[in-house]
């Protein structure tokens, strides 16, 4: 069956938009501060990029805080900040994404089983090990009885939340909280180091030119209050998102990217910035590297993982960055790959890759 016949089955329009009305972001940078705009950028110490965590008692009740693992704390706090900024009391859906979930609690319960030969166990860490704990905890705090989903698919975990939100708006929901969360434990970091998954980046080598293997693993949480309707507090707008599983080569990615943009009646030259998910790993970045000249022909290319590191839900940080770029009408120098910076910024495209398996396009625009 050819492309034309195939098109018959695809919906020709994809008009649902999502307005971003509030954001909250915990990352290895000072992004928790709403005034921070890449002015002071931290570099990772060694091969791991730790999140800068806020004082959680400002966001979470002490009785809850005591038991929570870091992923839950980061997620609930980032969600809380987004909700406060949007000025909403409740939402119609809570949709979270996480590659590894509440790893700290999972590991704690696993080690307790192994260390004590399955005896003397308590349920708290087991209860909190469930991947949907963050979404459930937010629902509990907000008393939200509505739609609650948790996506756990590697480099598509956050993308799936946004895809879902766009469908939910079409189905009549008005306000949706989406977010991506990732935490890692010292043991997990140690084992990944042992498996040679990391690299220590040379400070002067731009991430998109890296010739080494290994990533700089990182963590964080970014949440967004999305709305079907534009309000006074709307910061930016998500026009669309698409995931791409194991594309064959960079031509394949470029072809799909053109199709994605044309479904929004746009071309690459309409993009003012394209943030690309270079991870610093020579092999994983190969396709993006081949794609880069094509992108730079039409628009200004940028990176973001040199600032946030690599993790399953790094696209959530990229979406937060895109929102900020649109708000400030400026591409921070630290992110710029291309020499020529844009003067006005209407469209920011995010092209992400995760381990050269999970690719995605996210289109964010001024609203």
């Amino acid at each position, binding site marked *: 069956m050819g492309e034309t016949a195939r098109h018959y089955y695809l919906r020709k329009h994809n008009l649902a938009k999502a307005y971003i009305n509030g954001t909250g972001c915990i990352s290895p940078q000072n992004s928790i501060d709403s005034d921070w705009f890449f002015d002071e950028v931290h570099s990772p110490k060694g091969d791991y990029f730790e999140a800068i965590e806020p004082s959680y008692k400002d966001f979470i009740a002490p009785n809850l805080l005591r038991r929570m693992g870091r992923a839950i704390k980061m997620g609930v706090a980032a969600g809380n900040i987004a909700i406060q900024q949007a000025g909403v009391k409740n939402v119609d859906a809570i949709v979270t994404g996480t590659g590894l979930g509440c790893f700290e609690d999972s590991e704690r319960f696993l080690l307790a089983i192994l260390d004590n030969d*399955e005896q003397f166990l308590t349920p708290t860490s087991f*209860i909190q090990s469930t991947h949907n704990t963050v979404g459930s905890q937010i629902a509990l705090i907000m008393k939200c009885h509505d739609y609650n989903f948790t996506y*756990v698919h590697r480099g598509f975990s956050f993308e799936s939340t946004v895809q879902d939100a766009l*469908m939910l708006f079409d189905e009549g929901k008005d306000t949706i909280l989406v977010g991506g969360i990732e935490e890692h434990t010292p043991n997990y970091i140690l*084992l990944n180091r042992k*498996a040679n998954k990391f690299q220590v980046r040379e400070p002067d080598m731009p991430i998109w030119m890296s010739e080494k293997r290994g990533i700089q693993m990182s963590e964080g949480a970014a949440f967004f209050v999305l709305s079907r309707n534009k309000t006074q507090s709307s910061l930016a707008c998500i026009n669309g998102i698409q995931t791409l599983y194991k594309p064959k080569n960079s031509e394949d990615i470029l072809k799909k990217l053109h199709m994605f943009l044309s479904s929004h009646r746009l071309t690459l030259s309409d993009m003012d910035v394209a943030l690309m998910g270079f991870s610093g790993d020579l092999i994983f970045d190969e396709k993006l590297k081949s794609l880069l000249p094509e992108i730079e022909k039409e628009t200004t290319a940028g990176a973001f993982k040199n600032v946030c590191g690599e993790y399953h839900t790094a696209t959530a940080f990229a979406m937060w960055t895109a929102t900020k770029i649109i708000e400030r009408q400026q591409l921070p120098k630290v992110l710029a790959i291309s020499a020529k910076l844009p003067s006005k910024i209407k469209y920011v495209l995010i092209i992400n890759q995760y381990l050269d398996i999970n690719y995605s396009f996210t289109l964010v625009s001024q609203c």
Partner: protein
Amino acid sequence: MSQKVYITGLGMISAIGNNVPECFLSLSQSKTGIGKIQYLTTRYKDEFLAGEIKLSNAELADLVGDQNPALNRNSYIAMLAAKEAVLNSGIDTKDGLRTGVISSTTVAGMSKTELYYKDLFKNDEHLDVLDTHDCGDSTERIADYIGNVDYVTTISTACSSAANAIMLGCRMIKHGHLDRVVVGGVDALSKFTFNGFNTLMILDREWCRPFDENRKGLNLGEGAAFVVIEGENALNHRKGKALAELIGYANTNDAYHLTASSPEGFGATLAIQQALALSGLKPTDIDYINMHGTGTPNNDLSESKATVAVFGNQVPKFSSTKAFTGHTLAAAASIEAVISVLSLQNSMIFPNLNFNTPIAETGLIPETTLVHTPLNVILSNSFGFGGNCSSLLFKKA
């Protein structure tokens, strides 16, 4: 209006059989798959029962036909059930239509991680578990096993996971993003989940007794089940055959407690009501309910109350099939979706085993023997930790 969505293929592996025909045979013979623990390594193997798949990992590898050492029990059973569903449906993923795989799991590769976690620090032998521990792993293995898959994602909402995978697949077809989707869930039994449920003190040492006044808890099981769902356009295009129609679904949150259900079953009531509303059906249109019915004191009372809240004194025939399979967590809702379709196709209600005395508070009595009766619409419930409540409605095609 958006197109109708049909179930066109079934695949299942569980304690009661390695494929759908075997599972159907056990169901129609009232033969449980729950018994003495044979495969899971645990100090409690003589104290508790479980619904294990009666195959070792080596036997599963042979069935899958892949000796890749990175594969784990979760992937083996997911691949087998998904492939069975695809073959059963007769779809050809190379025909240019858009195919998705939406799977779900709670502990993913834990059954292997827990065997080697301590060794990882000592030697390099099993470091591949770092790449296969996460929930996305088995989904991508299914996608590669089937081939030509355009879209993948994975859901984890505890024991309601597969219901949400089915619901999402249906919505993606209705929104025009995909033409057909292989949807379902998988969970291999692990020491991790076994001990988790044990610390919560909700495991019955005997066979579980869903909806019985004297129920003590659940029996854990393991399994994988997938169904192929197709939009009517794609189905008509290939002149395929529908097994059932997916006519309603809803996802709500109880927002009561991280593990326990609210005593009155508030979230469950909402889920059933919203699924009915979406389908445009009345409560009296439901012919049978395949209950979540885990056998825990908390779930069964809460679910009974929700049932009464929706259906009043006209509660349809119902049963829980967990006493056949054990509670298979993320796979439960897709296993029960397969069972529901088998019920519709064969006009059979499979019995609620081990029931003696109704719960005093609600007095509801499940079907306890195999019932032959025409069925048109079936409601299937699934509830999970974190207050997740999901309901699905299947209609005879």
